[in-house]
């Protein structure tokens, strides 16, 4: 079994289009929530969203390439290029064939679907553009990452709604650990702030009318976001042999399904994924200092997640620092787990825990230390990153400081 380390990070987010800009915004608690400006999404909702503003495809792609790639895949490619560049890996020859590209997404090329089906259904178009399917397919981002980074090993998409990226990184971690690949370029991407999707979220009545305030009293729901994050995972011996800068070690992955309700969260299912991760990582509860929570800002999630943390950590739960990245970037759905895993790695590396912003005060059902409104400097020996998706699909990643 290989030990597995993280040697590269890449981010396209609503609060920064590089890992460092993103991390600075998280630490400062600077969110970019605003009314949607993409396409006709603003006609579907009056709620605020976390859009990736000022993303210029022409800065990253040739004009002829842009036509072939949906926004969701553009985000993934840009984040993957950043992560590979930071890792210093040259993905050629045998290493290219020993590297995986595993990208999570909840809805794939949603912009392409929305625009083209509108032409078909509403405008009476006689035909669809022939690139509709290759741009919209849920695996397009994984394909495009493999193409643009020259990755020739296993490549596929993973889709589990809001846990997609966490499942993707976890599966990639287990593949590198088992030795089936040497490296993996893995994460998640989402770009579904469209008229159709926003109508769907409106119908669920879980979008906040003001902002995202996870675990806080008077929290009113989630803020939809978008973006991508990608990490490079690498077998320790390989990273060491080439003298790579090791950011942290990924040590555990746990999964579970609630098998209970399509939308209501279940603390039992969440707790099984958390304790599964601790077991997979061979970490005791008292070794964990920080939890990057799923923390959507809905009444139901945050209460259930708090209960799951009590169940998994017992008396140690009171000593955990728990915070929600979604209070700053919103819920980037299939990308959320990767954005949050990057935050978890940076917290370990820098010894700073990002805050839960917009916190107004305690809710009796949410009685942990949520690092309210201000970042905290503290050593983070090991941390978990939680993702609990609609449909009861739970996934949790564990990472720790790299010590030789």
């Amino acid at each position, binding site marked *: 079994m290989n030990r597995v380390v993280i040697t590269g990070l890449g981010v396209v987010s609503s609060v920064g289009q590089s890992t460092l800009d993103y991390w600075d915004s998280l630490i400062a608690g600077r969110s970019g929530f605003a009314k949607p400006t993409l396409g006709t999404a603003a006609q579907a909702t009056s709620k605020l969203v976390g859009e990736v503003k000022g993303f210029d495809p022409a800065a990253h792609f040739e004009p002829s390439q842009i036509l072939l790639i949906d926004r969701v895949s553009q985000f993934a490619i840009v984040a993957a290029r950043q992560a590979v560049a930071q890792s210093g890996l040259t993905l050629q020859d045998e290493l290219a064939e020993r590297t995986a590209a595993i990208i999570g997404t909840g809805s794939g090329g949603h912009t392409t679907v929305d625009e083209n089906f509108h032409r078909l259904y509403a405008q009476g178009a*006689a035909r669809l553009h*022939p690139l509709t399917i290759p741009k919209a397919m849920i695996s397009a981002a994984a394909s495009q990452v493999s193409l643009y980074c020259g990755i020739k090993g296993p490549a596929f998409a993973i889709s589990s709604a809001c846990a997609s990226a966490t499942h993707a990184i976890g599966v990639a971690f287990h593949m590198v650990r088992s030795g089936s690949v040497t490296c993996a370029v893995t994460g998640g991407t989402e770009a579904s702030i469209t008229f159709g999707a926003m109508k769907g979220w409106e119908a669920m009545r879980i979008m906040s009318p003001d902002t995202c305030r996870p675990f806080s009293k008077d929290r009113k729901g989630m803020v939809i976001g978008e973006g991508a994050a990608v990490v490079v995972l690498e077998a320790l011996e390989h990273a060491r042999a080439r003298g790579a800068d090791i950011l942290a070690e990924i040590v555990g992955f746990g999964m579970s399904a609630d098998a209970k309700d399509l939308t209501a969260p279940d603390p039992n299912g969440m707790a099984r994924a958390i304790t599964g991760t601790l077991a997979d990582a061979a970490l005791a509860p008292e070794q964990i200092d920080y939890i990057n929570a799923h923390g959507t800002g809905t009444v139901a999630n945050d209460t259930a997640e708090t209960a799951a943390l009590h169940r998994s950590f017992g008396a140690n739960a009171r000593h955990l620092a728990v915070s929600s990245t979604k209070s700053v970037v919103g819920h980037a759905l299939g990308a959320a787990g990767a954005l949050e895993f990057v935050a978890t790695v940076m917290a370990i590396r820098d010894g700073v825990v990002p805050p839960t912003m917009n916190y107004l005060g305690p809710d009796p059902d949410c009685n942990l230390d949520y690092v309210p409104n201000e970042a905290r400097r503290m050593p983070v020996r090991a941390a978990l990153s939680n993702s609990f998706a609609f449909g009861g699909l739970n996934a949790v990643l564990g990472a720790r400081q790299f010590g030789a």
Partner: protein
Amino acid sequence: MTTAADDIIEMITSRSSYNGGALQLSDSLDKLGLDSMEVVSLTFDIEEKFNIELPFNANYDVTGKTVADLIQMVDELVATKAKPA
């Protein structure tokens, strides 16, 4: 009868992977340097422009067919469509 020639030549030569140079009507379609997605994309553009359906599918063999053949096919489809029922 007007011909689709100018429009079709422009659609081919403006594509990024077109192998350059002056297009001859006698050039074979399979020698233009267009990749597979550009061929279907060109098909789409022609269909949209002339509001016709080209009888191309994945099994249609363009080997030996020329630019002139394509223009003639489009002209005929446009003429058929224009005929009163």
